[in-house]
């Protein structure tokens, strides 16, 4: 099966995806709320900016992130505080990069789910005595749960599949920034096709399983059979 190094790379990928999704759910909840339920000046520009990772070559994104996170950018002195030379080539740096890179994949489903909430449901929850946080936990989250699941799955799968950005800002430190996709790239570069095959297959099957599970769940949800 996989070599120890590849298992480690896979483990870094999973950690990265997990932390990224968690952060993105926290960031995107208020963001999706103000985008879906409010109108304000500059909204379209911000939405376009946040959607850029969908269309930009990851290397463009990686390049700017490298400047931002590197020792001469703000990442340098933030890294200093944490005892790092810079945020680039570190796990925290990868997390920042992944958050930017996967943001639209989490934001979009959340935005749709929150836009679909009925105003009167929220109003009646307030009339029933629920304050804002209470309303979020007891009404918004359960009614938008499909959106949250889609967002989490897409964000996770997309972060696992990240390559260009991590190549630019990650380096390839085993156990720290060497993720599965980069490890695969290095196997191919080294002509080690046997290991490349195994790792590629694992990534392929894992991604397929995740998306398959998501689509199955969505189908069941929309046919209403589990209600």
């Amino acid at each position, binding site marked *: 099966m996989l070599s120890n190094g590849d298992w480690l790379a896979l483990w870094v990928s999973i950690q990265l995806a997990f932390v990224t999704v968690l952060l993105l759910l926290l960031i995107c909840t208020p963001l999706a709320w103000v985008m879906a339920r409010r109108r304000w000046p500059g909204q379209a520009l911000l939405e376009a900016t946040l959607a850029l990772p969908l269309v930009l070559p990851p290397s463009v994104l990686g390049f700017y992130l490298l400047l931002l996170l590197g020792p001469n950018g703000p990442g340098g002195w933030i890294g200093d505080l944490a005892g790092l030379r810079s945020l680039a080539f570190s796990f925290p740096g990868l997390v920042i990069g992944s958050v930017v890179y996967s943001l639209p994949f989490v934001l979009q489903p959340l935005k749709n789910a929150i836009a679909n909430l009925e105003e009167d449901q929220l*109003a009646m929850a*307030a009339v029933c005595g629920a304050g804002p946080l209470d309303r979020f936990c007891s*009404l918004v989250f359960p009614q938008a749960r499909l959106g949250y699941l889609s967002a989490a799955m897409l964000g996770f799968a997309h972060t696992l599949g990240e390559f260009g950005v991590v190549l630019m800002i990650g380096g390839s430190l085993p156990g720290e920034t060497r993720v599965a996709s980069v490890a695969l790239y290095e196997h191919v570069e080294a002509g080690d096709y046997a290991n490349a095959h195994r790792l590629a297959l694992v990534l392929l099957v894992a991604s397929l399983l995740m998306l398959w599970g998501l689509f199955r769940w969505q189908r069941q949800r929309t046919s209403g059979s589990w209600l």
Partner: protein
Amino acid sequence: MSLEFAIKGRAGTLSVEASGKLPDNGVTVLFGPSGTGKSTLLRMLAGLHACEGMIRFDDEAWQDEPAKTVLPVWQRPLGMLLQHPTLFHHLSVRGNIQYVQKRRGKGVNLEAIIEETRIGHLLDRAVHKLSGGEAQRVALARALVGNPELLLLDEPLSAVDLPHRESLLAMIQRVAQKVPVLYVTHSLDELLLLADQVWLMDQGRLTAQGPVTTALVSLTGPLAQRSDASSMLSGVCGSFDEADHLQTVLVDGAAFMVPLAQAKPEGALVRLRIAARDVSLCRVQPMQSSILNIHPVTVQEVTPTGAGQHLVKLALHSQTLLARLSSRSVRELNIMVGESLFAQVKAAALV
């Protein structure tokens, strides 16, 4: 005084500006054509629609202009029904009831409310499997479980099919004996059945506030201008004639015969609706008439309403009757304010 307010705000292009005091109990019907801001006013009072001004409830400021305090909706002790039942669709019926019970249902008699609203058999149902009437009953139960000190009802019957409206109205009437109710509708039937007080609304303004009996017979008001203008008499049920299906209703001692399928208990308080077009006037007491209800009345007011018609306001003891006559009859009979005449009531119905 339970609720007192002087507020203004906007809903789209309509500016809503209103002030008033809600009686301590009974149903106050907020009446007016569609699009005049009734729902907006209700939502402003609830705190669901932003507005400026003052709202006080039982000496507590819900909103205060100079102090800029606004008590948030979830801290106001009110219950609300909207046009659509708006049950939480991710919860069962029981879940909906528990939602409010957990938050403000301290010491509430849940059993009694479930019994009163007849939702016991629905508790384990999914919300989307309820009919319109069932859903609105659950919504009423949910509102009552929250121990409301004020009920705001926004056309609660609009999603309820006809046969189920009556029972829901009866429930609302019983609730109103304990809790003040502000009830938005544009249906005259609902107004006649429920209203103790009427607030008339037109183009974002409250144009009149007063007892329903007064509002109905105010000749310059919008209710008397309608083709189905009616007056309402309060009475006490007397005997019931089984053979002819006639119920006697005593209105200040004057006996009205009302056709009815089933007897009402003697002594029950009822309301009689009498359409103005079903009342005619005679100078002398008609004899051998087919009309059962003939009573002496005094003319209080005579007003032309255009199109060859007049409205005549009549005192029947302490209550008021409305008659719509042709202008020619008014002229030929020479009907003058202060005269005593006989009113023939062709049809009276219990509401």
